[in-house]
């Protein structure tokens, strides 16, 4: 239970098209993360699935049943809101019971479910408190608890961690992943934080301007981004992307460098974007890239080097350890051929 299919979902607010035809299948028990920059439509898409907004056109199916015309309550989903949306005048227990009481569930059953969820989330001592008396992390757990007790077909999480401080976010991230494993339920998690997406997701859906850019596992997105946008969006620090021309088996960058194409890769001559992740660059005497160091951010185990690459181009390299690089020093860098990403003039991956 919990397979969600979207067929050509479109949403317009007046003349503005927010979602431009989304097709997507979320499998049973999967944790899928919608990620994308602000305004890409990820929260809107989640609200369509939840039933809080109606799509302008398209069809939403849950376990093969078309639920598009159904109200939010009749879809069997539970949502965790960014603001938690706990009822401030009710105790934690009452908050968790509220939805179950709507279904006229017998009280012993309600109590049992609350007890179980409270134990799972370790919020038993908080049951008689009100949300105002809880910390951000505790409220978050209660909000999740309120979703769990309903035993929904799928959980919808709308940026649930964005109101937490950095440290708490890391631990809640792990807890949510563990919870997903324990419950085995389908979860859709919306975030703009790509680290959150990478660490939690079974699959990531990258959205931009109302369109799906790529759907894949976190590592596939990292290793084989389908286009320039995904390449730039996934991974931190972002991938080096240099515009150039493919000519005679090598790429001539606008900054002047000539980079040989990896062996076995054949691309037609013409405009091209050459991509390489900062982590895949290494200092190599006589390497194909020559750059002048502008700034070194020493993080301890590794150093992020910002450098100028000839004519206005910039280069980012993450080098292991603490290399002794002064500002203005010229370094030569190399890389493994299989780490190279090539994107055509249309922004799509060619190799």
């Amino acid at each position, binding site marked *: 239970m919990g397979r969600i299919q979207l067929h050509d979902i479109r949403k317009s607010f007046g003349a503005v098209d927010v979602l431009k035809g989304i097709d997507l299948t979320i499998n049973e028990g999967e944790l899928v993360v919608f990620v994308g920059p602000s305004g890409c439509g990820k929260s809107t898409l989640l609200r369509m699935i939840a039933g*809080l907004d109606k799509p302008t056109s398209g069809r939403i199916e849950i376990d093969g049943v078309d639920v598009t015309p159904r109200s939010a309550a009749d879809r069997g989903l*539970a949502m965790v809101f960014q603001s938690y949306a706990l009822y401030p005048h009710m105790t934690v227990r009452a908050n968790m019971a509220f939805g179950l009481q709507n279904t006229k569930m017998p009280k012993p059953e309600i109590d049992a479910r609350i007890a179980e969820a409270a134990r799972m989330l370790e919020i038993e001592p908080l049951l008689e408190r009100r949300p*105002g008396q809880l910390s951000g992390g505790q409220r978050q757990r209660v909000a999740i608890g309120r979703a769990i007790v309903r035993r929904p077909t799928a959980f919808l999480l709308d940026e649930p961690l964005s109101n937490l401080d950095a440290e708490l976010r890391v631990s809640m991230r792990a807890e949510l992943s563990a919870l997903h494993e324990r419950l085995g339920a389908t979860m859709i998690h919306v975030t703009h934080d790509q680290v959150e997406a990478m660490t939690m997701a079974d699959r990531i859906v990258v959205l931009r301007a109302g369109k799906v850019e790529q759907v894949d596992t976190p590592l596939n997105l990292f290793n084989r981004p389908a286009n320039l946008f995904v390449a730039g969006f996934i991974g931190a620090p972002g991938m080096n992307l240099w515009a150039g021309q493919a000519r005679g088996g090598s790429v001539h960058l606008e900054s002047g460098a000539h980079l040989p194409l990896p062996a076995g890769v054949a691309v037609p001559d013409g405009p091209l974007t050459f991509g390489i992740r900062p982590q895949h660059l290494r200092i190599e005497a006589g390497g194909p890239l020559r750059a002048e160091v502008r700034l070194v951010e020493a993080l301890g185990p590794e150093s992020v080097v910002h450098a100028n690459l000839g004519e206005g181009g910039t280069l980012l390299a993450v080098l292991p350890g603490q290399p002794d690089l002064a500002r203005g020093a010229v370094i030569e860098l190399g890389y493994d051929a299989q780490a190279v990403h090539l994107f055509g003039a249309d922004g799509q991956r060619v190799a």
Partner: protein
Amino acid sequence: MTGVKGMLGAVVTAPLGALARVLDAPLRLWQRLTGQGGMVAFFLLPNMAIFTIFVLLPLVINVAYSMTTGAALFLPERTYVGAAQYERLLRCADYTNLATCQEDQFWIALRNTGTFVVLQVSLLIVAATITALILNRALRALSFWRAVFFFPVLLSPVVVGLIWRWILDRNGVLNAALVGMGMDPVNWLLERNYAFSAAIGVTIWAHLGFFALILLAGLQAIPRDLYEAAEMDGTKPARVFWRITLPLLMPNMLVVIVLALIRAVQVFDEAYVLTGGGPGTATLFLTQYIYEVGFASLLKNPGLAAAASILMGGVLILLTLLQLALGKRNERKGRLK
């Protein structure tokens, strides 16, 4: 423009500057002599003086009046009678029969006011809540509707009374319409129950916008997320109202209830212009009773009027204290959130 502005500025600031220069030395001297406390007193003094002369002093004089008798206007010429006026107001041979009370008009006014307060405040609260709920929706031309409901609040109470008398009079607009539709005219202001209902209806009409506005502010402060969470939970609209909207609206609701109570106890202007207390004593309210006994009747009795006003003041003070207490409680709750 700048020339005019500059000139205006000079006209305003020049005398102020001169005043400041004149006051500078004496104020510095005053501060040296009395310290910071003295300066505070200096700046508060004008306000305190006005308050004392126009509020505190009349209040004390009123208490003094309530312990005197006679028609004389000036206090020194009046006869001291202690609590006799209060006794006269409150004495009844049989408290189940108001006709046996010495001041039966006072008791009638009290009963009318009590009935009025209960009915008017409850209907007003319900109407204001419904109005606020409707105005809180995304209606077309919302600002227009909000203005429509708030408009009567801006009218002077006497104007409100006159407008509605013009409508409800025996030869008024409403009867003209009824006759036009082939129905018999109704004596809206000359039949006891109709007149009393009219007083309630008109005061609700006049005050509705004010209270609806306070409630609307409360409604708009309730996060939309909560309603969406309730929607996900499949909560029926009635349950959403009783379990979510109303509890979260309670702080504003309590303010509205207490303010409405205070205003209702003081009901006078609209009702007086509308019905003049009639027919008979059907719409005679406490404030009108006090006004008539003290100023308008042939046998003026300022002492009795003062005593009645002190009793009414007591009720109002209780209600005000209630409001303050509720306000404090809300503040504490707000801090907890």
